[in-house]
């Protein structure tokens, strides 16, 4: 028997709609309505300024370690804006822009970053999962939720976020394989920000693209300019339609860049040069989007100035609210809450012992 060729489809598409200066390819422009465009821009800008304030507050010791989303706003907003509010959203740990879009108040995010478990509570009505830190660990839950939606015949899909590093974890491959095997309504958003802490994308995997990993599972995938909110939007829209039609999951690789630190505990000076950061700075998604909006007369320079002022006030007042809330959160006994529906006797005993100890020692 001779050796035979097994034919495989190997091509993946790359989609980019805006050029570097924010000029769109007219044929590809998804023609998003004005209100949505304005909301997308506002949330991206809010996320950026919120990150900047938080970096300052972290240095001052007001909040703890956190992972800024800076540079990835288009990947996050372009994708989440393309689905419905009652679709599910499963984040990893850097999805500030997505959280803001979904309606998570900044005060909640601040409480989380200041070390209060209260910040993990999901606002009423939001179908979001809490932040999940172990890389790729949340992806199989996204598949399970999607399968439940399918079984319950709900027209809902599941957005799931992760980074380039996640594609090396077993959980990523298991989730993709399950999703395609059970044709679940999942949209997997891989934010390839080029760095997994100190490990560059090329060292993470020798694969030419990350999206091609979908092909191994028979899943459609597309690579997009992740700093182009229109391209991310258009690709997500397509994936969402596929999911809603019952045609299963899609992997979207957003090519973007982490313009800031991995977390505030990290020093990128140790492993990457500033030149690279400057090169990517030119592709900053916010000015690009602003050029587009400006050229299409959706947003004028003057509007941006007004908006900046508004956002500044909003962020500062979120801190004031968070600070006010923290004053009433000094009771450590809450650590015994939310472990089970009903607190077992041994835990109640420990809780009482802590209470007694604190009373005896003026705690």
């Amino acid at each position, binding site marked *: 028997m001779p050796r035979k060729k097994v034919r495989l489809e190997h091509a993946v598409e790359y989609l980019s709609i805006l050029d570097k200066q924010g000029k769109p390819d007219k044929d590809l422009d998804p023609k998003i309505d004005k209100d949505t465009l304005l909301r997308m821009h506002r949330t991206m800008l809010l996320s950026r300024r919120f990150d900047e304030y938080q970096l300052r507050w972290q240095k001052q010791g007001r909040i703890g370690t*956190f992972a800024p989303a800076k540079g990835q706003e288009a990947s996050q907003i372009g994708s989440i804006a393309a689905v419905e509010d009652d679709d599910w959203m499963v984040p990893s740990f850097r999805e500030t822009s997505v959280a803001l879009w979904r309606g998570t108040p900044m005060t909640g995010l601040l409480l989380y970053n200041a*070390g209060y*478990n209260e910040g993990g509570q999901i606002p009423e009505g939001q179908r979001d999962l809490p932040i999940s830190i172990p*890389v790729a660990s949340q992806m199989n839950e996204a598949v399970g939720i999607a399968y439940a939606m399918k079984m319950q015949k709900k027209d809902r899909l599941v957005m799931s976020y992760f980074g380039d590093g996640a594609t*090396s974890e077993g959980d990523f491959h298991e989730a993709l394989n399950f999703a395609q095997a059970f044709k679940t309504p999942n949209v997997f958003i891989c934010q390839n920000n080029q760095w997994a*802490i*100190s490990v560059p994308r090329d060292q993470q995997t020798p694969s030419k693209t990350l999206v091609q990993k979908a092909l191994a599972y028979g899943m459609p995938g597309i690579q997009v300019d992740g700093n182009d909110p229109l391209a991310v939007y258009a690709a997500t829209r397509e994936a969402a339609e596929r999911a809603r039609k019952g045609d299963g999951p899609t992997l979207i690789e957003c090519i973007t860049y982490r313009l800031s630190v991995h977390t505030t*505990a990290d020093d990128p000076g140790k492993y990457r040069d500033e030149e690279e950061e400057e090169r990517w700075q030119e592709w900053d998604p916010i000015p690009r989007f602003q050029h587009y909006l400006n050229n299409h007369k959706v947003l004028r320079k003057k509007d941006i100035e007004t908006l900046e002022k508004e956002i500044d006030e909003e962020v500062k007042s979120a801190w004031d609210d968070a600070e006010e809330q923290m004053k009433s959160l000094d009771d450590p006994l809450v650590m015994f809450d939310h472990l089970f529906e009903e607190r077992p006797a041994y835990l109640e005993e420990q809780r009482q012992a802590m209470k007694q100890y604190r009373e005896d020692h003026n705690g």
Partner: protein
Amino acid sequence: MAELNMAEAINLALKQEMEKDDNVYVLGEDVGVDGGVFRVTDGLLKQFGEDRVMDTPLAEAAIVGMSVGMAMAGLRPVCELQFSGFSYFAFHQLEGQAARMRWRSRGSYHVPMVCRIPYGGGVRALEHHSESREAYYAHTPGLKVVIPSGPRNARALLLSAIRDPDPVIFLEPKAMYRAFREEVPDEEETLPIGESQVARKGDDLTMITYGAMTQHTLEAADKLSDEDGIEAEVIDLLSVSPLDDRKFTESVRKTGRVVVVHEAHRSFGPGAEIISRINEKSFYYLEAPVQRVTGYDVIIPYFAREKAYIPDVDRIVAGARQAMND
């Protein structure tokens, strides 16, 4: 002799052993260019090159599984899992392969590897970055669990761990990485795995602890001496498994009063095993019920409240007084 903190002391052990033995390899996430997120492996890449200091892709199971294979084939891998909270991605490799290979192959193979894992709270970190789950590993037959408490013993224990013929889980209390400096001799120094140390001598009370809690317990012992005139003997276990019960048995038979201190959860924690050994070997010497000062049976709260979870000097003193007054 240099004054080193624990991160530097562990770095020294790695460097010296890599110089001495070409079979020693270091692998893990961000251990090379970045020098590790706690800078424990800083400088190793430059000195030994990327074949021996491997910045791996982000995959804990592969890091451990690959280490098992390397060890079986004659190398001495020292892998790092970035935080203990991420070590569960590799649990099946540790439990199903590392711990069983010698047993399953009836001695045909063995796995001389070290898995270094920062663990424990007290550094204002995020979720999954503060747990003390040493019991998972100590409960696994075939694994040794070593937990240093300071620079000098960390260096000496790591050397022994690398030379050990079997897999060693080397848990590094991250709150101790830069907590204090200590004289660490330049020349090689080892400490046997499975042997505890008397960190402070005393006749009135035995305090058994390990890891980051050793410092708190020593402070508590000083306070008890100053305020109550109680002289406590502090046993620093250094290995949780194999558990050295000879030293604390001797001490308990002398004092008759005991407090066990650990950061790990209370139920099914290492304290439960320690107290069982006391019951088995020293029951008739006891003057009072043994006290436990531990973390609670809840997931360690986010950092704003972690202090209330982690045993501190005052809680340890209160536990000790209880053991004295009963």
